[in-house]
């Protein structure tokens, strides 16, 4: 499986681990981010919706992957993000690092997820189920194209 993925399909920890096979790398660290139900007060999140500026996000993920390999001398890397709707408990992101020694794998994985959150053009928005019905607002007039 590719080191970098931006996909609407569900992400699997087992597949990520399989992608990190490398006989020289005795240490593997995997990070999974998953959707929590407790984001908003007074309502429970059923799912999050993830969107990306796809070409820019892929470029960012590839730069992070290459940077991590160089900086932490990683043998293999996984940097997978899901887009579209993801239900509570579903995995939105998997970051993985395989290295000869565990310190590199831990530092590399942490560095990648921190960088991803800072600089990869991906956004989540909440699809909530209100705790109680809210009054309907009159529908807003859609603006026409600017210019």
């Amino acid at each position, binding site marked *: 499986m590719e080191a970098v993925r931006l996909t609407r399909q569900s992400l699997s920890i087992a597949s990520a681990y399989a992608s990190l096979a490398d006989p020289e790398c005795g240490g593997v660290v995997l990070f999974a*981010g998953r959707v929590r139900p407790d984001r908003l007060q007074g309502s429970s999140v059923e799912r999050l919706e*993830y*969107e*990306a*500026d796809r*070409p*820019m*996000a892929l*470029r960012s993920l590839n730069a992070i992957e290459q940077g991590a390999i160089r900086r932490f001398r990683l043998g293999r890397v996984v940097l997978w*993000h899901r887009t579209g709707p993801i239900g509570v408990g579903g995995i*939105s*992101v998997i970051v993985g690092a395989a290295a000869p020694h565990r310190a590199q794998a831990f530092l590399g994985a942490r560095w990648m*997820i921190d960088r*991803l*959150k*800072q*600089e*990869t*053009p*991906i*956004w*989540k*928005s909440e699809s909530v189920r209100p705790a109680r019905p809210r009054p309907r607002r009159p529908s*807003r007039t*859609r*603006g026409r*194209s*600017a*210019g």
Partner: protein
Amino acid sequence: MAGTVRVLLFASAREAVGSSQLQPKVEPAGIGLTELVERLGLEFPRLRPVLRVSRLVVNGEYIGSKHVTLRAGDEVAIHPPYSGG
């Protein structure tokens, strides 16, 4: 030749405008990025607070300065603060 630039709107920018894409017309001489952003803010008041915190990407490059002239066929992406992961 006159034409349009493409404005890509993501996340809260898309929600503020109600659309993921705009195609504003530009004169052959082009339009400054600053001017384009002002026009968008006037037309979509809910977009203004989003624009203040967004990064702008012109033809796939992050733009530090707004002293950039856009011409027909150029693409501007409005990136609100990222929240992936």
